[in-house]
């Protein structure tokens, strides 16, 4: 350094300060001169020229100022080029709360952190026992392997504003799958949604609740669809009514048998069908003896068909008398009302259509059909595969109804993002934590970042929907901000999910 100074006496080498200058610099001002109002047009007036000169002088004195620090205030460190990190040689300062990391019993700083601290006058980095000037810091620390100049510009800008900025490490993020399994935050959100949905539902009928639940389920599925790799089936099932109708139609398809489960006293048939070995119980042929009825006069049951019994098992005639003592043979006394209901039941049993139903589902369907016919739900619209979107007999709030009949569902940023291929052109660079958290910030447990930064330039392309989806998916529920660098200027942009508000109140 100094030898060049000597060999080149004609070139003024003013940027290395003499000891007296260094000493004098201890008491220099830390104020920045205020910039006055700008003029609109150069007028060549002396006054204007003077002002320009003054501004330029202030400018150059600010720019040319060199950093001078007390040795005791400087943390010493060395640059390790092979690992592209900076190792601290003396105890770290206050910055250690938010920067640096420990490994192998030593304290290290990442290159961008070291460079920022150098610029702040907190750190002196040595390489080969010589202190590195800031210029060397820029040229050595900022490479494509570590962090580029543009990334550093963003880093420095945010640091100067007081934010805590850490490199984003995609591997330390929970994978989509683990996020799916253990979702403290987003699960909570879904749960809250569910709760809110429920509480707003006014005096729900049972079918209404069912519909509600299935829609909230679906919403939950949608909000986690990002993590949904394991579910190839899209959860866009039609309305629950439709699926109900579907099961009904399939069961009515094999109605051709026309069997009923009201028994006939035909034992022979029963043994026949039992020996056929069908796995289903044919209740039409299974006879249960009515021991209590007064019409039952025989005192014993006939012995069962030996062909139904295993091997050499012999079962004799069953005497009913002890059994009859054990059961209550008193006749049930019925009120007239009960009597009437009983009669109704009786009537239902006499109903031919009802008698043709083989199970409860069919019976309920029949009842629904009958009710529908009464309430203007024409059967021909409802008993096919394609049914109206909404059943007018179901009470539903307007908002719900609008949602139901909307043909194009609104999408969100994360929808389908998990199925996209990764891209190398865009990556998240930094986790950013807000300045007000600095006081109790822990590097080991930084908590949820305030936002994540992706650095790009005005010269490059605008991120497309694919990129935005990918980054949003990678970032989870933390917003991704695009820091766009235009030479010295940095602007921040973010793309947000937006749901069109519906001005409908139920």
């Amino acid at each position: 350094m100094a030898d060049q100074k000597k060999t080149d006496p004609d070139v003024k080498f003013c940027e290395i300060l003499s000891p007296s200058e260094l000493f004098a610099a201890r008491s220099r001002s830390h104020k920045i001169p205020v910039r006055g109002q700008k003029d609109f047009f150069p007028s060549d007036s002396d006054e204007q020229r003077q002002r320009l000169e003054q501004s330029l002088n202030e400018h150059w004195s600010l720019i040319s100022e060199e950093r001078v620090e007390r040795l005791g205030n400087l943390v010493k460190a060395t640059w390790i080029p092979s690992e592209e990190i900076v190792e601290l040689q003396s105890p770290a300062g206050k910055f250690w709360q938010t920067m640096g990391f420990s490994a192998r019993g030593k304290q290290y700083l990442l290159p961008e952190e070291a460079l920022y601290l150098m610029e702040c006058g907190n750190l002196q980095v040595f390489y080969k026992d010589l202190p590195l000037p800031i210029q060397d810091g820029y040229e050595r620390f900022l490479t494509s392997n570590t962090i580029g100049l543009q990334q550093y510009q963003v880093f420095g800008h945010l640091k100067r504003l007081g934010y805590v900025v850490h490199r984003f490490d995609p591997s330390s993020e929970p994978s989509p799958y683990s996020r799916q399994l253990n979702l403290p935050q987003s699960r909570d959100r879904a749960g809250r949604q569910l709760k809110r949905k429920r509480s707003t539902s006014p005096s729900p009928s049972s079918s209404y609740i069912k519909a509600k639940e299935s829609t909230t389920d679906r919403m939950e599925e949608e909000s986690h669809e990002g993590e949904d790799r394991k579910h190839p089936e899209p959860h866009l099932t039609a309305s629950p009514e439709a699926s109900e109708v579907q099961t009904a139609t399939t069961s009515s398809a094999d109605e051709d048998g026309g069997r009923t489960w009201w028994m006939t006293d035909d034992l022979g048939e029963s043994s026949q069908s039992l020996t056929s070995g069908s796995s289903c119980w044919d209740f039409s042929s299974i006879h249960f003896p009515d021991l209590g009825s007064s019409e039952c006069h025989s005192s014993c049951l006939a012995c069962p068909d030996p062909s139904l019994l295993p091997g050499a098992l012999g079962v004799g005639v069953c005497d009913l008398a002890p059994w009859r003592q054990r059961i209550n043979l008193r006749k049930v006394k019925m009120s007239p009302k009960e009597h009437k209901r009983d009669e109704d039941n009786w009537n239902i049993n006499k109903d031919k259509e009802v008698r043709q139903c083989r199970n409860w589902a069919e019976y309920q369907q029949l009842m629904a059909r009958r009710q529908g016919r009464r309430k203007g739900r024409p059967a021909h619209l409802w008993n096919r595969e394609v049914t109206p979107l909404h059943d007018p007999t179901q009470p539903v709030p307007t908002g719900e109804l609008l949602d139901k009949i909307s043909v194009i569902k609104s999408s969100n940023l994360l929808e389908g993002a998990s199925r996209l291929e990764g891209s190398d052109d865009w990556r998240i660079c930094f986790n950013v934590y807000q300045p007000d958290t600095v006081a109790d910030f822990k590097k080991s447990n930084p908590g949820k970042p305030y936002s994540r930064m992706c650095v790009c330039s005005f010269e490059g392309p605008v991120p497309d929907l694919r990129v935005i989806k990918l980054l949003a998916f990678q970032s989870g529920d933390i917003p991704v901000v695009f820091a766009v660098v235009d030479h010295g200027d940095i602007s921040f942009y973010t793309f947000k999910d937006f749901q069109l508000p519906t001005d409908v109140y139920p």
Partner: protein
Amino acid sequence: QIWTRLPPKTKFSLKHSSDSSCENTRVTQEEDWSSSPVVGVGLCDSAPLLWRVQDLRTVRSRGLVGALLGSLARTPRQNGRLGRPLLLLPEEERLLSECHALTCRSPGELTSRSAGAELTQQVEQYEEEQQRSYEEQSVLALEDRKSALLRAMTSSHTDEALRGRLEAFDQDFTLPRSALAVQLSTARAGLTYCSEARAFLQANWPIRARNDRHSDVKYQVFRDLRGRGFYLTSAGKFGGDFLVYPGDPLRFHAHFIAICQSLDQPVCLLDVLTVARLGSNVKKTVLLCSPGTDGEVVYTSLQWSGMV
């Protein structure tokens, strides 16, 4: 309905840059450059950065503004005013390199310098210098203390007591090592200060290929506007290519937003309206700049105006 909200009249004024006075100023400036000192550029992540104050001054005196990137030494933790290094726009870099006014040194050359015996010598020298600085600063600090004492004790104490105190200072005072003021250099010392080496490297500035057409168009526009005495900065935040200042940006507001477009490139009317609207909102005039075939640049200014 939409059209009523559009400008009733958009005025286009065409102006050609064929007047000879402008040409002349450009030529004289180029002559100036050839005689001016060469600027030392450091490449950081392939971006051209200037470090030495002298180089920054040289470039500014040529009307090139650049962009400051670093923390300001005086108050580092703010973004209002930044300090060295200065980033050159690609157009500025190209303009300087075409005038052979750039030289560059990569950090790789530096490592070769710092090798073996020479390195140990340098380390020794550094330590020696620091020791010398310590001694000098100790003397200065002692003087400082003494004068402070003198100021404080003139009235209340006798001369003897004062003399005794001063002598005690002379004997006992040691500047703690930690109070030593040291410099954290901004620019690297080295070859950039050696004029012969500069001359040798002068022609060696790598013309970094920027083959795309748009950057060519931008460069021609930049060169022309600079030749006319305007100061230019990048205009990303205004949706254009350059902000055009009538004088030094320290003292003047930008008047124009320059948008560079080659002559044969069709322009969408909506884009024109967008930029014109933006320009009027920030009280600047939008300039559509297209280099012609004969090396001249055609400027079209857009202005909102109501129909009277």
